């Protein structure tokens, strides 16, 4: 799976450079997130601006990362959701769970 990972102060920003986040690549994202938590990096921002399509497995990978972040006293935020991707979060009520920002630049800096 193509990911751009960059660190901005205390935040790790993962840009998903794939058109689809689905059952084919969701496990890769889960593994990548687990590796970051194991390195002690616990505040994550996932930029979905290039993702045009997400399925329930993609949503599941993000939920998995969110739960791991909380367990590690960290956070997992989302940015850049395209309208149809956002509608999947709304259908499954997950928009109430995640902090979702219009773009990565809108995410406030961590204290």
């Amino acid at each position: 799976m193509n990911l751009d990972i960059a660190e901005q102060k205390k935040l790790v920003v993962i840009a998903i450079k794939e058109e689809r986040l689905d059952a084919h690549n969701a496990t890769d994202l889960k593994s990548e997130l687990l590796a970051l938590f194991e390195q002690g990096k616990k505040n994550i921002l996932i930029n979905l601006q290039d993702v045009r399509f997400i399925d329930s497995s993609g949503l599941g990978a993000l939920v998995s990362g969110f739960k791991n972040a909380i367990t590690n006293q960290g956070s997992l935020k989302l940015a850049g959701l395209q309208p149809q991707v956002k509608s999947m979060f709304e259908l499954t009520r997950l928009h109430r769970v995640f902090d979702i920002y219009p773009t990565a630049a809108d995410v406030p800096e961590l204290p």
Partner: protein
Amino acid sequence: MNKNRIEIDIKIPNQTRYLRLIGKIGEELAIGLNEYSGNCNTLAYYINLVITESVINTITHANACDPDKMVHLSIGIEHDELVIRVFDEGEGFDINNVPPPDFEGLEEGGRGVFLIRAIMDSVNYRKMGTENVLEMRKSLKNK
């Protein structure tokens, strides 16, 4: 054959790498529908999703992730309905017993069948001869 009838019959290896291809075929069919009264781009996304969710269920459950098996599906237009059928030769399951997701909890899985039901007008799964068929229909009118 009725001039308004389309049926695209597809067989793919039981591998997740083909989800993109079959989802795209469903999208292209939906985008070209002159008779649909709603937003064709939204319908296209939904059809891509429904195909992806139903086929991944077949890949992982009925076909137990065996990469040498095949998945058979059909995507078509019958009268004023878009119809997707996914066939399998697994043990089958009672789709009416699949619980809705726990919206308050944070389970990783369990949203696939919910999404299919939320998008399609009718969903049924039944035995047909030696195989099972998951049949999903969406009306193209008055939506």
